[in-house]
């Protein structure tokens, strides 16, 4: 088994499976915070998927996407926190 096959046929599916697991938590919730956390984690896992994918395709370009994901994902969490705090204050 080559490194390519290993990454492509074993690790990539495992990461995708992790995504599914995370997504199950996303669906279950129960609180919105759980969803926000899982969303964040989904993105992080996505970065992993992209990194592995870039190795298997020999395309470093994809790492740039990982970079953007890493940067921007954070803002989502911040915004949700901001929202939750404000909503809570208003109530």
């Amino acid at each position, binding site marked *: 088994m080559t490194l390519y096959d290993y990454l492509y046929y074993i690790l990539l599916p495992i990461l995708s499976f992790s*995504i599914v697991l995370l997504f199950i938590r996303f669906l279950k919730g129960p609180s919105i915070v759980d969803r926000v956390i899982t969303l964040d984690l989904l993105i992080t896992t*996505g970065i992993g998927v992209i990194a592995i994918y870039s190795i298997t395709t020999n395309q470093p370009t*994809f790492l740039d996407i990982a970079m953007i994901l890493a940067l921007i994902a954070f803002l*989502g969490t911040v915004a949700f926190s901001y*929202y939750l705090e404000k909503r809570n204050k208003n109530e």
Partner: protein
Amino acid sequence: MLLTLYKLMLIAILTGFLFSIFLVFAGKYLKGRLAILSALVPLGLFVYFLNFSKRIANGEVISQTFEWVPSLGVNLGFTLDGVSLIFALMITGIGFLVFAYTAAYLKGHEFLDRFYGYLGIFMAAMLGVVLSDNIISLFVFWELTSISSFFLIGFNNKEEASRKSAILALAITGTGGLLLLAGVLILGNVAGTYSIAEMLSSKEVIADSAHYILIVLLIFGAAFTKSAQFPFHFWLPGAMKAPTPVSTYLHSATMVKAGVYLLMRFTPVLGSTELWNSTLIIVGATTMVYAAIHTIFRTDLKGILAYSTISALGVLVFLIGLGTQDALLAACVFILVHALYKATLFLVTGIIDHETGTRDITKLAGLRKVLLPVAIAGILAAISNAGIPPSFGFLGKDLIYEATLHFGNSAVLLTILAIVTNILLLYAGFLAGIKPFTGKLPTTFEKVHLPSFLMWLPPLILATLGILIGLFPSIIQGSLIQPAVTALGESGSEIQLKLWHGFNLILALSATTIGVGALLYFIMKPSQKLENGIAKLEFIAPQTLVEKFGFGFGKFSRFTTGLIQNGYLRYYVSVIILFLVILTGYTLIQNTKYVFDYDSFSVLTVYEVLTVLVMIVGILFTVFTKSRLAAVAAMGVVGLAISLIFVYYSAPDLAMTQFSIDTLTVILFVLVLYKLPKYLNFSDYKVRIKDGVLSLVFGALITVLALEVLSEPQGSQLTDYYAENAYVLAKGKNVVNVILVDFRGIDTFMEIAVLTIAAIGVFSLLKLRLTSKNRR
């Protein structure tokens, strides 16, 4: 010299328009002097047209064409022949008198200038109608007469009845106008020309055409509405809401005769067929009898005159329907006869109304003592109307009987109808012209004064003419009547207008008519009771039916509009989608092969399937979750999954952008959401199922469409070109970016413009608060 004269014909028509435009701007400053001066316009035109009479009498037909919209085949083609001349003289001549009359009648009225303006437009338009050779330009002028009529009927527009009548008249004549438009366009197409003169040579082609019936019906529609034929007659009594000069000029002497003119004009082109003749005879006869009977039941002078006018118009249509030379001759003569006496009677009525303040015939009597010249005019007109020799009316009546008596098998029936009509018309004329002046003067009217000569002279002139022509018919015989009859296509024998034909059947019939009519006048007394009696039948009157139809139609339009535009956005969306689904679905089902080339598709891999799976569940979750926030977060998941798909399929820039934008959207949502109320599930189960089915069908359609397209070959020459030139010419290696900033830079340019506008929108939508202070 000749040429300049010809040109004048266009200018002659334009004069009226120019006159009224002039009034728009200068009218206010001319009010006092205006009135008399205005009358010079029609007078000048009358003289101008009179100048042609000699040449017309010599059998000349004067025609001149000015190009207007040649690419549509529309010219200002004018023809002056016998028929046109009669009408032109009537229009300008009576116009002159009415203009003068108005000066006194509406003296000091604040909107006198407007009134003259409308009259000017009307006169010009009417001249346009009767002079046009090009049927499109005829239509143009025809419509203008309807419009000016609308403004004149509604002149006293502060009264609701007046406005209503104006709209009703416009609705009826407007409908007719549109029928005429269709008619002339089809006719023009069939004949291959819009020129009436040129059509004469293709008479057979037209008659044999499959569209002949349609053309004739359309033209009838126009003529009948304009000339107030049964059952379209009812707008005319309503139109009497207009000031009397208008009733005189438009609704008795000229405009209503436009329909008659139209029929006459088209007689040589379309006439002499069973359809043409029978329809006109039936409609004309019905109208003349029906309207004549109606005069009995009226007490308002103008009402009486209105119905008698309708009846007279019926007579004219009837005569054109007979279509024999006799009949057409009679028609030509009767037009003049009627114009003279009816105009007189209207003007007289106007004076009575103006001076006594009432038009109620049951109250009017003895006015000869205070309004002698008016009484003379009235009585003279009544005489001509009655056809008592030696009036012009007598001539006319003779010719009518002449025509009916010689009309083959139906001669007896038609003659009887004509007699009945004439008897009733006589009665009506006596009521209007004699009744107010005879008998004892009620005390209330003792202080009535004779108005300015401007008012009584015009009717007197007209009435006198009605007698004079009767005495000397040769005045008009050669110069007007003969050319007119020739123009109608009857070039047979020479015409002789004589007062005295010796003792014959016709004379007997005339005598009978006069006798019975006079008897009727002495026996019958118009009364409110009679009027009330006929009012009981109103529910089946054409007007009521039309109004009911209009009302029902209004209801119908409210119903349909309310049905279509019901206010529910989701319904709008459904309709549009349904429409799309049906159309595309139909086409797809008809043409789809359902053969997909699976081999060309890329292989499924675990991670892709899982990504798609997450996305599908994410979408479903977005749709069905009860929490808005969860839905928004789920959209984040969907966005991420899409980004991953873009990654898998070689679109790094897309993945980046999709992801960043999705995050941004989620943030915006989150920032906005917390002020909103909870997600409510408004719709019930059934609705959801229905919507669900529609949505699924729509989605399936898109899927099938996508697969269909994928099974077609595609080779993009763009791709290769970009690949080759991206670096060499555009100096970039990220081809997507090169496309964005260079090959298709304008797209990107406008994309940022869109963003800018959106930002302005957001800014102003949230920041701008219209307060009561800055609201207006």
